[in-house]
């Protein structure tokens, strides 16, 4: 696990070091550089596998191929003998060296043999080309920018902002999409000049020319069309167990982030079957809302006899928030990032690696909206049903309408296309509210980006929505949160539900096998029915219990008002001050709950002030 940085087309030792320093938290255990041959590469290392060896950059035997690598290759112990059979000799005991030899053996296609999470750069000095690769699902980050013929890349945006040639101009379309979704869907970022390398893609740079190529994509279609639920569950369990076994590989202690939900309980349960006592970690807040959650996590821990640790967070968020947003790197208004940070910080006292349940919701249908929107699509065939639901919705009081029941009914209502009803469920603010704050185009800015993903899959609304989440929400929100918040405290987070073999299998199951009815994650519950305690199997999906409104109305109240009405914010001219003032007023008087909108605006302003406006690095 590491941070990597580089410049193709320029040898600049000081600049590459400054870029690496911007991601120093990703790798406090060491650093390494290569400057020469017309390029500059750098990395900061967090040692997990082969701590004593494997210092990067790593060269091939003949010093023609060089790599800087961030991530973990879980199958490196299988790849090694395979590559040795083909005549490659290894000088380190680690996983990174396999990347070099795979490139020598298979060229760019070597990436297909990697099982794990990764972002890497390979410099092929004989062909004078640079290859960047990002793992299939976007677990590890990689950003790049083109400055004329030069290419700069880094694990985080901050490192690219250390390069004076990278323009800091905001992408206003991306900003609108951020307001709708609370994150910026890739490949754009909030900064116009900086792009994300999309998951499952390779980028090559040669003579100043850049080409982007996809090497893998999730295929949500009926590949295993004949499997019934029991068989699918049995095969899923076997693959999941294999994934957990692979994700245990580590030369340092590891633990599990346990929430009490079925995903992290599944990880804990599988791990508990293997040798060694599992360490589990849970976080809660002293506001009371998380008591149930903590108790459930404790029950799971007791069931599996883990070495359980829990921590209760008190107030102090106002002071910590600017630092947290800076660590998020991209503006990300997902409140779940806060507990993720604190639990990683807590776990870091005991372990260097944590396993999490992330990805299960996207892979196995953990979001109620999949099944509800599917039902909505089915109801559209009967006009009577939609108008009845429509009447029901308008008869509801306002706060019910925006609540859990209202969202479900809304998903069923009307002739609006799938995308619009999806946004009705997930959007941070309504289209009207967004336009009042930021002017047009509102939701329409997200339209083309999202509908391209929706229409990539045909026929099945559940698979359409899952694909959309695989392409946007998962890599640009969930995994950004997981990577940045763990890396902020130099802990490596691993996500066994996103092992690509497991993903390929589950994606190829018919939607009716994964989600036969309105519930969530039926397949996971069936697969682990003999492994998990009964109360966990019965547990319903809950929104992450972050006391957002309590924070905003309590300890963060002054921070929100001050930040959003400060002259610095007003002088940007991005939002209409009157509309902001109205949001704040209505929230203060308790007339409306604008918590998510305010959180989104607050996060953005803190990011603008602390990351984008941070003094540009001096040019030397």
């Amino acid at each position, binding site marked *: 696990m590491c941070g990597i940085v580089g410049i193709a087309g320029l040898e600049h030792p000081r600049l590459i070091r400054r870029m690496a320093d911007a991601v120093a938290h990703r790798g406090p255990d060491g650093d390494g550089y290569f400057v020469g041959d017309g390029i500059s590469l750098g990395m900061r290392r967090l040692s997990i596998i082969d701590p004593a060896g494997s210092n990067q950059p790593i060269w091939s035997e003949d010093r023609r191929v060089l790599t800087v690598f961030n991530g973990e290759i879980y199958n490196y112990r299988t790849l090694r003998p395979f590559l040795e059979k083909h005549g490659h000799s290894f000088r380190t005991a680690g996983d990174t060296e396999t990347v070099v030899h795979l490139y020598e053996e298979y060229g760019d*296609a070597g990436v297909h043999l990697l099982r794990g999470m990764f972002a890497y750069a390979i410099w092929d000095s004989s062909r004078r080309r640079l290859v960047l690769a990002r793992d299939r699902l976007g677990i590890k980050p990689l950003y790049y920018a083109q400055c004329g013929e030069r290419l700069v890349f880094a694990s985080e945006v901050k490192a690219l902002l250390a390069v004076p040639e990278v323009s800091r101009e905001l992408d206003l379309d991306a900003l609108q999409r951020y307001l709708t979704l609370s994150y910026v869907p890739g490949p754009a970022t909030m900064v116009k000049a900086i792009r994300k390398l999309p998951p499952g893609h390779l980028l090559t740079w040669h003579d100043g020319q850049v080409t982007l190529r996809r090497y893998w*994509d999730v295929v949500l279609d009926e590949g295993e069309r004949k499997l019934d639920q029991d068989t699918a569950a049995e095969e899923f369990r076997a693959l999941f167990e294999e994934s957990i076994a692979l994700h245990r590989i580590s030369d340092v202690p590891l633990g599990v982030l346990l929430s009490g939900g079925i995903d992290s309980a599944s990880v804990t349960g599988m791990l508990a079957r293997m040798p060694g006592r599992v360490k589990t970690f849970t976080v809660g807040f002293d506001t009371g809302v998380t008591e149930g959650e903590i108790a459930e996590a404790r029950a799971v821990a007791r069931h599996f006899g883990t070495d359980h640790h829990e921590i209760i967070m008190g107030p102090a968020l106002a002071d910590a928030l600017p630092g947290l947003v800076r660590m998020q790197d991209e503006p990300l208004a997902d409140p779940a990032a806060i507990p993720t940070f604190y639990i990683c910080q807590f776990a870091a006292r005991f372990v260097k690696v944590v396993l999490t349940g992330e990805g299960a919701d996207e892979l196995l249908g953990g979001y109620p909206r999949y099944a509800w929107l599917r039902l909505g699509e089915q109801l559209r065939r009967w006009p009577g049903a939609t108008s009845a639901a429509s009447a029901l919705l308008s008869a509801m009081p306002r706060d019910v309408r925006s609540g859990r029941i209202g969202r479900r009914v809304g998903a069923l209502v009307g002739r609006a296309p799938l995308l619009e009803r999806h946004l009705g469920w997930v959007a941070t603010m309504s289209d009207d509210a967004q336009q009042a704050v930021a002017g047009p185009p509102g939701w329409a800015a997200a339209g083309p980006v999202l509908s391209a993903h929706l229409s990539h899959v045909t026929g099945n609304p559940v698979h359409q929505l899952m694909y959309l989440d695989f392409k946007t929400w998962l890599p640009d929100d969930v995994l950004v949160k997981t990577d940045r918040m763990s890396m902020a405290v130099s802990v490596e987070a691993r996500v066994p539900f996103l092992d690509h073999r497991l993903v390929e299998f589950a994606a*190829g199951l018919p939607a009716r096998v994964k989600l036969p009815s309105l519930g969530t994650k039926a397949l996971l519950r069936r697969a682990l029915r003999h492994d998990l305690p009964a109360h966990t199997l019965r547990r319903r999906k809950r929104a992450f219990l972050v006391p957002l409104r309590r924070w905003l109305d309590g300890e963060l109240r002054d921070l929100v008002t001050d930040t959003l009405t400060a002259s610095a914010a007003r002088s940007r001219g991005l939002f209409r001050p009157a509309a902001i003032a109205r949001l704040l007023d209505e929230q203060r008087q308790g007339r409306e709950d604008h918590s998510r909108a305010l959180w989104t605006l607050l996060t953005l302003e803190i990011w603008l002030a602390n990351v984008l406006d941070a003094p540009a690095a001096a040019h030397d």
Partner: protein
Amino acid sequence: MRLLLLTIDFPPARGGVQSLLARLADGLAGASVVTVVTGATAGDRQWDATQAFRVIRTWPLRWERLAVAALSVRALLEVLKQRPHVIVCGHVLLGPLCRTIRAVFGVPYVAMAYAYEIRAPRMRSIAGVALRGATRVVTISEFSRRAVEAHGVSSSAITVIHPGAVVTGGPTPPLRPTRRGLRVVLSVGRLVDAYKGHDMVIRAMPLILAKAPDTEYVVVGDGPLRPYLERLAASLGVTPSVRFVGQAGDDEVDAWYHACDVFVLASRESGVSGGAEGYGIVFVEANLRGKPVVGGRSGGIPDAVIDGETGLLVDPSDPADIAEAVTRLLTEPDLAERLGRGGRRRAIEDLSWPEYTERFRRVLSEAAAG
């Protein structure tokens, strides 16, 4: 000897079982009076007219239960009319019928067992009835023998006869049905069951292309899995190198066998649902044309592919292993040549069709003699 063959799978419908039974009926027809009772299917009239045995067609087989019922009534009539010496039960679904006939009229029956139909959980009880009640059971591989034994049939009642391929007398098709200079990796099989492993070969393609760039994966056969497989190819960026030919006639399939450089079918065993390759006659058909084959180490495939002699066996769940074997055969001409020759020799000498028929005839005689 008077023989009644009851089956729900029969040409002109396509499939391995279909052609196996037709060849069996044809082979036995010389010395015995063979009557086949089966369901109706498109184009059956012309097909039946050219056979050396009599075919009685009942209702279309799409309506499975009704068809089995109609077939049963018709079969009973034939038993009364002909008093056959022995019945061949072509599918376990017809087992209860054969068992009843045996009990009432004392006509012994020989049950055919393949793979899926005797392993699928939903077929468990009916397969048990059919197999345990049979005088003898003929099956296609050691893998299937174990599946039959699992139903409580004693091993002395089971005979494994490896099916062979038919040597066509005609000349080699002259045209290579693909672009010149392109090397062909071929699969032949219906795109109905995921266990056939087309998906894993497609996943292996990026690695194969890295070492043998001028290679095309040709998929002969059609079915509901095709859209998924096409998407899979697109998701890996190998669409230009994967060609879906669709369903092909015998001549066209023959031409593809001749045109290919490597034949591959990476079938896997699919958990409790029972999906698995019972044998894999397509390997023998490719071998017969002198082609080296790559097979998934699963089910009955090790009976059809002798590792290192007629082809290579691979881990069917591992695209890297598949890629490695296919790449070796594409890049090591001596190896490909040796395995192709070994395969052809085995297909002609050990797995000839007359040999199959002869061994089957012996089982029938023993069964008829009681």
